[in-house]
């Protein structure tokens, strides 16, 4: 019988299989950051253990790093201690680390792919739920907890029970102005935040095949918001072209061998998935969230739903609570919602294509009065690339703030936070209560919608901008 992509990659990593026990899987790449690693290193130290495979381990600083004044000491003592601890642990154990100020520093899920470390058919883990991002390359990528981080450091393996598989097939053409972010938000609204529970999702179909690598990462990134263990996309020419020439991509004969292997990584025609969802790309439109979980979304052209319209009592209750927290009324046009802050960044939408898309819209225009727009590249290298292309100037001329790389306002562990009651249009992945700052209200959007919203001051798509930008 045929196997799915996930099953192929899984089978290729089984170190030990025994009846009634979880499989012991080999881990090809272990990514570390400052928040979830300290007790793992401490555990190693106590047991007198070393890191088994330093050559498969890499660390970066992202969650706590400030995006301003990065050359000054970090003001918040907790953030400072977490970063200093990571530095000490990496030095003590010999782990490669990219610290604040380093060109390869940035959000861990932007750094791995950009270095060419994330490759098709690999297993990738990190103590962070958005590790699913790396699945865009046809890698099996899981977020793990701190005790599992320690386990991987010590053994380069993880005992894991095999998840089920779900195909999400998207065929057809995405309409103009509809992005990968709109697609994944629509998927999550359709299947719900628990819809992917226990599954590895495989996104497939002609609409997915046409997407760039960065767009594919946006989609796999948010698999976790659908409750899934991981998300994957079969590698193809787009994947190979993205990897070719990157710092850690194979070269010469090894490249050829790798590509030959990567080409086998597709779900067989006779493979069966445990579940399947089909979406017609032509039905999609710019999508925004109105509630406090990523499954509470709707097309931008629609209205805030009436909680009474939800049949399921718990969904109805959740909608009531969400509208109360968000300060919204049922029936209000989504386009009428005024925002205070626009955040462009995160491991969902902080890559160069995202910044280009946002810059293309604000170019020659001004950020609306009373709106603060924060642009935070996903990594220092993305920031440099943007500067090289003059995007930083475009943003600054429009009145946006151009910042240094990190997680920033995606979760507000650093000083970039919403004030209570403040409303944001954010390209990040979670709109939970207080996620971007205590009492803050978040609408998840694409970079294009974020940029148009910054210009109008209310939730908007680029198509809503009828003015002619200056100097064009």
């Amino acid at each position: 019988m045929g196997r799915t992509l996930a099953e192929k990659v899984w089978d290729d990593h089984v170190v030990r299989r025994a009846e009634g026990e979880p499989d012991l899987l080999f881990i090809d790449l272990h990514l570390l950051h400052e928040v979830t690693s300290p007790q793992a290193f401490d555990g190693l130290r106590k047991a007198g253990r070393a890191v088994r495979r330093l050559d498969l381990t890499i660390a970066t600083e992202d969650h706590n790093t400030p995006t301003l004044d990065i050359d000054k000491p970090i003001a918040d003592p907790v953030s400072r201690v977490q970063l200093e601890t990571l530095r000490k642990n990496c030095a003590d154990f010999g782990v490669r680390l990219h610290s604040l100020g380093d060109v390869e520093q940035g959000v861990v899920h932007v750094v791995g792919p950009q270095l060419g470390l994330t490759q098709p058919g690999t297993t990738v883990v990190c103590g962070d739920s958005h590790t699913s991002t790396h699945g865009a390359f046809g890698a099996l990528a899981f977020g793990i907890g701190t005790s599992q981080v320690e386990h991987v450091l010590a053994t380069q393996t993880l005992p894991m029970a095999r998840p089920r598989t779900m195909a999400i097939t998207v065929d057809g053409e995405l309409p103009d102005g509809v992005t990968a972010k709109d697609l994944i938000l629509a998927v999550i609204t359709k299947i719900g935040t628990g819809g992917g529970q226990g599954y590895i999702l495989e996104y497939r179909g002609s609409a997915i095949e046409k997407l760039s690598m960065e767009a594919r990462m946006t989609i796999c990134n948010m698999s976790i918001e659908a409750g899934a263990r991981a998300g994957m996309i079969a590698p193809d020419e787009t994947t190979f072209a993205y990897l070719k020439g990157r710092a850690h991509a194979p070269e010469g004969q090894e490249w050829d061998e790798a590509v030959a292997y990567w080409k086998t990584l597709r779900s067989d025609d006779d493979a069966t998935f445990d579940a399947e969802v089909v979406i017609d790309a032509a039905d999609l439109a710019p999508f925004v969230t109105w509630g406090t979980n990523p499954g509470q979304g709707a097309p931008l052209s629609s209205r805030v739903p009436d909680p009474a319209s939800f049949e399921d009592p718990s969904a109805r209750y959740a909608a009531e609570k969400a509208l109360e927290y968000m300060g919204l009324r049922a029936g209000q046009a989504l386009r009428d919602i005024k925002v205070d802050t626009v955040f462009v960044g995160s491991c969902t939408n902080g890559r160069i294509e995202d910044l280009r898309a946002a810059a293309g819209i604000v170019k020659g225009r001004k950020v609306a009065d009373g709106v603060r727009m924060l642009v935070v590249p996903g990594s220092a290298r993305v920031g440099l690339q943007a500067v090289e292309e003059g995007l930083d100037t475009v943003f600054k001329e429009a009145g946006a703030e151009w910042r240094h790389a990190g997680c920033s306002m995606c979760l507000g562990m650093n000083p970039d936070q919403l004030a209570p009651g403040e409303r944001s249009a954010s390209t990040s992945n979670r709109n939970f209560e207080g996620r971007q700052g205590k009492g803050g209200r978040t609408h998840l959007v694409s970079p294009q919608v974020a940029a148009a919203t910054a210009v109008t001051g209310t939730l908007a798509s680029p198509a809503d901008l009828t003015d002619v930008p200056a100097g064009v």
Partner: protein
Amino acid sequence: MEAFTTHTGRAVPLRRSNVDTDQIIPAHWLKKVTRDGFEDGLFEAWRKDPEFVLNKPERAGATVLVAGPDFGTGSSREHAVWALQNYGFKAVISSRFADIFRGNSLKNGLLTVLLDQEVVDALWELTESDPTAEITVDLQDREVRAAGVTAPFELDENSRWRLLNGLDDISITLREEEAIAAYESGRPAFKPRTLPV
């Protein structure tokens, strides 16, 4: 993890039920980045009271906590186990433990012993009237012994085997060293590496 075969020590009788993990180690301690140094956070709020049993000079150096029912409820924080161990406890006795706490404790080598409430009552009376009284927790024979008390206890064979041999999850996986090494030697050369070889 340290192996646990049998342990004898003085006790702290804690006559409280439903001690949740927030009382064992308050949330503000979770910002720490190590697994040790939690001893001062153990029962932090209660220790402000000089009359609290842990503060009594005759309880210094005690290693067996005899707790009330439903010990370790609430948040899943593993720090609660670390705090008890950092303080010096080797075993906790109760008539009922919260599941996650119990799982965490056995993973970390802190033996949680389940006994009937009458036995716990007897151990409380004994150790309250005589602070020097010792309790033996014998994992080999699955038995708790003290003056006038001999009580068997249950523990699943897998947890017992792991504790007796001092095996944590990592040590168990490391027993597969041969399989891991064999897998490693068969990995293709084109697989990514973070360091030059």
